[in-house]
């Protein structure tokens, strides 16, 4: 019964094996994601990280951009707890390029509403070997 009981529940011999397997699995997943993003992904679609309104687009199609260059500016509602009270205020944020690359197309214009993770703002090519 011992071997049978021990072998059940996990596919692994012991919990230590399972812990190690989880770490190997995560390493593979992370390595896959990093390699895919650095070398394989053909183009990058930049989407907003929160809902808001586009204030300005600082890049144009075919423009080369460098890491740290401002790509667009948007307006959003900043919700923050200050002294226990939820404060909401309109704030603007510059979104900068996280890698060198070239803008392929811009699909929004000033004043457009941005939906978190949904609206495609621009499509760009990135320098291979860097993480976009």
């Amino acid at each position, binding site marked *: *019964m011992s071997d049978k009981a021990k072998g059940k529940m996990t596919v692994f011999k012991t919990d230590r094996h399972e812990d190690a397997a989880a770490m190997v699995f995560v390493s593979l997943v992370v390595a896959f994601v990093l390699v895919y993003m650095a070398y394989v992904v053909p183009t990058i679609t930049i989407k907003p990280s929160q809902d808001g309104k586009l204030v300005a687009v600082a890049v144009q199609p075919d423009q080369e951009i460098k890491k740290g260059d401002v790509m667009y500016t948007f307006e959003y509602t900043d919700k923050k707890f200050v002294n226990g009270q939820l404060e909401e205020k309109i704030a603007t944020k510059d979104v900068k390029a996280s890698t060198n690359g070239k803008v392929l197309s811009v699909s929004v214009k000033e004043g457009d509403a941005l939906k978190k993770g949904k609206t495609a703002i621009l499509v760009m090519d990135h320098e291979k070997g860097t993480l976009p």
Partner: protein
Amino acid sequence: MNILLALDDSSRAMEQAVRLASQHQAGLTALFVLDAGWSVYIGSDFLLGSTARSKFLEYTRDDEFAQQHATVETFQKMAQAAGVPCVIKTTTAQRVPEAILAELEQGGYDTLVMGHPFRRGLEVMRDATAQVLKSAACDVLFVSREG
């Protein structure tokens, strides 16, 4: 007549099985099922510290064997004292009632005797008697724990 006694810690069930076998001059088989379901039962939580789970499973296994030893010994003494010959069988299962039903099917028994509530391994958390009653194709005698 052929009787199967499903062993747990109920001494009244043992007594009744021995009495029945002696009255009817029947064959008596006692079945002890070791519960191997612990690994699944404790599976709901996942952050067990490394060797803790296998240690616990070894601990439950040792406890199962200790119970098997004690129960079988008690029963054998009882049967010997009454002069009733008996066969002892031991098996391992993820679910105890399934092993009892499998033995009933294979052994061609006429009567099953078991304690009620039935307390073998993780059956303290389940309803073994209901499950057995639903599928048993023979007479079943449930013996209550208190007389």
